[in-house]
C-alpha cells in the first residue's frame, strides 16, 4: 500500500448527537451504555410478522415533519426517515451549533454530506399497497412528494432546507458504510476548500425492505443479537439518526475536543453480500485509517467492531482485526444496544466512540455470554472504566464496501 502523508490537522467534531432505540441524544445513550440497558425489543413495527427483535426509535409516529412552527413549509419532506432526522437535529444543541457555523462561515461554506441506505422507502412500500386496481398507478399524494421522501437525496435535501444551508451537498449510499464514508468525503471537501465546515452523519429508519430482506437472507436473529458469541445467530435491525459538525481544528479545537484523526476506505471486490474470506478489504480500511492518522496499531485504545452478530461478519472481522492489531487491544460491538442501524451505523458508532473518549470508558459487548472460542481478538464482555484517547471504529457493508474511522481527543 502506498504511504500517505497524514492529514495536516485533524478535523474537530464541534457538535454531535445521536438518536437510537436507546433514546434521544448523548445523555440517554451514555446512561444506557453504562447501565448495560439494551434498546432492543420484540419486533412491533407495523404488522411485520417476523419473529425477531428491533431497535426502534420511540415517538416517530407522533412527530410529523411540518407540524410545528419550526418545520413550517417543510411538510413535503414528511416521512419516517426525515422525522428521525429532525429528531436527531433537535438534540444536544445540534441545530444551534449548525446555525452558528452557518453564520460564522456563510450559507455556501457549510456542506451537508449524509449517508443513508434506504432513504424514505417506507412511503413507497405503503404507496404500492394503494395502487389503482385498474391502472396500477401510485397515489397522486405519493407522486408529488417522492422527490422529498424516498428519492435518495431527500435526507440531505431536508437537512439543508431545515438549516437554510446552500453549500455543497450529497447523500452517500454505500449500504452500511454510508455515514462512515460521509466523514471521509467531508474531510476531503474541507481540505479541498469546497467548504469550511460540514454537517456529516446519516439516518436510516425501519422499513419492510430491510426487515424482509435480511429475513430472506437468513441473516437476522430471532432474539436480540449477540455479537461475537459462540452461539450468535444473526443481526438485529435498528434505526438511528446521527449528526456531527466537522470543522478545522484552528477554529473549533479546545482541550478534550473530539477529532477525526483518520479514515480508511476500501472494497472487498469479492461478493455482494458475503465478506471477503480473509477480510482483505477490512484490513485495507483499518490500515488506511492508521496511515492517514499517522498512528501505530498500539496507539489505539479501543476498537468498536462492526460486530453485526452474523456468523460470517464477526469471524472474518476478527481475522482482519487480529492481523492488524494482534490480540492486545480491547474490542467490542455495541450492536446489542442499538441493533444494526445500517447506513446510520457509521455515525451511531462514531458518536459512541466520542462518548467513550469523553467519559473514559469502554462498553463490553452486550447480550453475549460466551465469546466464540475461535476468535483471537480481545473481545470485551464487561464495561471497563479507563481513559480512552483513540478509538477505531469499523463499518462494513453490502457490495463489500468498508470504512474505518479513528477518533481521538486533541
Amino acid at each position: 500500500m502506498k504511504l500517505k502523508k497524514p492529514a495536516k490537522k485533524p478535523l474537530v467534531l464541534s457538535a454531535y448527537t445521536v438518536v437510537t432505540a436507546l433514546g434521544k441524544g448523548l445523555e440517554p445513550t451514555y446512561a444506557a451504555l453504562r447501565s448495560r440497558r439494551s434498546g432492543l425489543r420484540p419486533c412491533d413495527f407495523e404488522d411485520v410478522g417476523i419473529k425477531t427483535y428491533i431497535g426502534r426509535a420511540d415517538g416517530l409516529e407522533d412527530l410529523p415533519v411540518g407540524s410545528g412552527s419550526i418545520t413550517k413549509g417543510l411538510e413535503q419532506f414528511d416521512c419516517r426517515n426525515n422525522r428521525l432526522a429532525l429528531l436527531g437535529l433537535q438534540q444536544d444543541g445540534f441545530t444551534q451549533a449548525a446555525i452558528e457555523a452557518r453564520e460564522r462561515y456563510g450559507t455556501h461554506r457549510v456542506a451537508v454530506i449524509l449517508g443513508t441506505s434506504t432513504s424514505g422507502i417506507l412511503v413507497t412500500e405503503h404507496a404500492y399497497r394503494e395502487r389503482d386496481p385498474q391502472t396500477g398507478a401510485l397515489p397522486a399524494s405519493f407522486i408529488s412528494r417522492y422527490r422529498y421522501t424516498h428519492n435518495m437525496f431527500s435526507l440531505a435535501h431536508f437537512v439543508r432546507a431545515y438549516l437554510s444551508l446552500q453549500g455543497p451537498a450529497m447523500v452517500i449510499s454505500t449500504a452500511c458504510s454510508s455515514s462512515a464514508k460521509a466523514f471521509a468525503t467531508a474531510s476531503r471537501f474541507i481540505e479541498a476548500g469546497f467548504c469550511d465546515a460540514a454537517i456529516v452523519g446519516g439516518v436510516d429508519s425501519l422499513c419492510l425492505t430491510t426487515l424482509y430482506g435480511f429475513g430472506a437472507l437468513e441473516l437476522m436473529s430471532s432474539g436480540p443479537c449477540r455479537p461475537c458469541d459462540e452461539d450468535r445467530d444473526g443481526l438485529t435491525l435498528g434505526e438511528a439518526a446521527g449528526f456531527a459538525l466537522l470543522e478545522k481544528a484552528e477554529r473549533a479545537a479546545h482541550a478534550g475536543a473530539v477529532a477525526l484523526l483518520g479514515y480508511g476506505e476500501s472494497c472487498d471486490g469479492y461478493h455482494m453480500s458475503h465478506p471477503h474470506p480473509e477480510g482483505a478489504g477490512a484490513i485495507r480500511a483499518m490500515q488506511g485509517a492508521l496511515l492517514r492518522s499517522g498512528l501505530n496499531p498500539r496507539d489505539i485504545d479501543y476498537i468498536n467492531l462492526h460486530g453485526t452478530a452474523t456468523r460470517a461478519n464477526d469471524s472474518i472481522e476478527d481475522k482482519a482485526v487480529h492481523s492488524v492489531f494482534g490480540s492486545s487491544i480491547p474490542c467490542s460491538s455495541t450492536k446489542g444496544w442499538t441493533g444494526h442501524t445500517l447506513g446510520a451505523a457509521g455515525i451511531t458508532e462514531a458518536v459512541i466512540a466520542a462518548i467513550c473518549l469523553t467519559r473514559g470508558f469502554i462498553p463490553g459487548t452486550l447480550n453475549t455470554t460466551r465469546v466464540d472460542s475461535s476468535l483471537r481478538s480481545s473481545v470485551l464482555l464487561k464495561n471497563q472504566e479507563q481513559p480512552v484517547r483513540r478509538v477505531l471504529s469499523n463499518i462494513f457493508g453490502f457490495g463489500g464496501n468498508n470504512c474505518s474511522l479513528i477518533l481521538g481527543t486533541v
Partner: protein
Amino acid sequence: MRLYVNGIGTLGPGLIGWRETRAVLAGASPYRETARPEPTASILPPNEHRRSSTIVRWAVHVAQEAIEQAQVNPREVATVFASSCGETGVLDRLCTALATPQRVISPTLFHHSVHNAAAGYWGIATGSQQSSTALACNDSSFCAALLEAAAYAHIEERLVLLVAYDLPPPLPLYVARPLREGFAAAFVLAGTPVDHSLAQLDLNLSDDLSGDVTNMEDAGLEALRSGNPAARSLPLLAAVAGHQAACVCLEYLEDQRLLIQVTPCQS
C-alpha cells in the same frame, strides 16, 4: 483544482461509445436519437452478468470503456458512482412483492437493491479493493460526483473512475421521476497528466448564479441533458470532444455553480 481526463466511456441512444459520441458532440456527424442501446459490459463474469440488473450493466459498460481507453489497471483506480435514482427496477420489484400478503422477496433481489450495486459489481469484476463511493444528489449527481472525484484524486493521490448513470424508472415509479431515456458516462480522472490525457479541467465552485448554465445546442441532445441527471455531463463531454478551450458551467443544486475550464491536451 486541476484534473486530467485520461479516458471516457459513454452509452446512450445515438451515443454508443466515446468514438461515436465525440463525432456527434464535435459536430462532425448529426445527432440521431436511436432506440435505447443494450450495454455489453463484457468485463462482468457470466454469472454476474446474468444476475446483474440492467442499470448495473449500463454503469459497468461505460466504466469498462473508460478504463480501457485510459490504459490503466482497474485495481489501481478508486471509484465514484453517481446515480440520482439508482436501482429503481429492483425497488419496483421489491415494493410490488412487499405489497402482497405473503411479502416474499428474493434474497438476491434484496442485496441488489443497494445504491452501490453497480460499484459492488465493478469491484467483483475487476477485483479492485480501492475505495468506492456511491452517491446521489438529485439532478446534480454528476456535479457532486465530479467534486468528490477531484478531491479524491488530489488528496488521496490516486486515479479515480467517475461513473454517472441513470435509467428511466419502470412504471409506476416513472410517473414520480420521469427521466427521459437512459444515459451513462464514465471518466478516468487524474491529478497529473499522462501522454494520452484528453483534456485538462480546472474546476471552480462559485456562488455567483448570474451566468448561464451550459446547455446543448442540438434540441435532441438538450432534451437528453435536461431529462437525465447522468446526461448533465454532456456539456463537459462536448467541450472535450470539441478539442478547443471552452468553459462549461454546471448547476450544483439551486445554490452554486461548478465552472470548468476545459483545455485540450496534445493527442
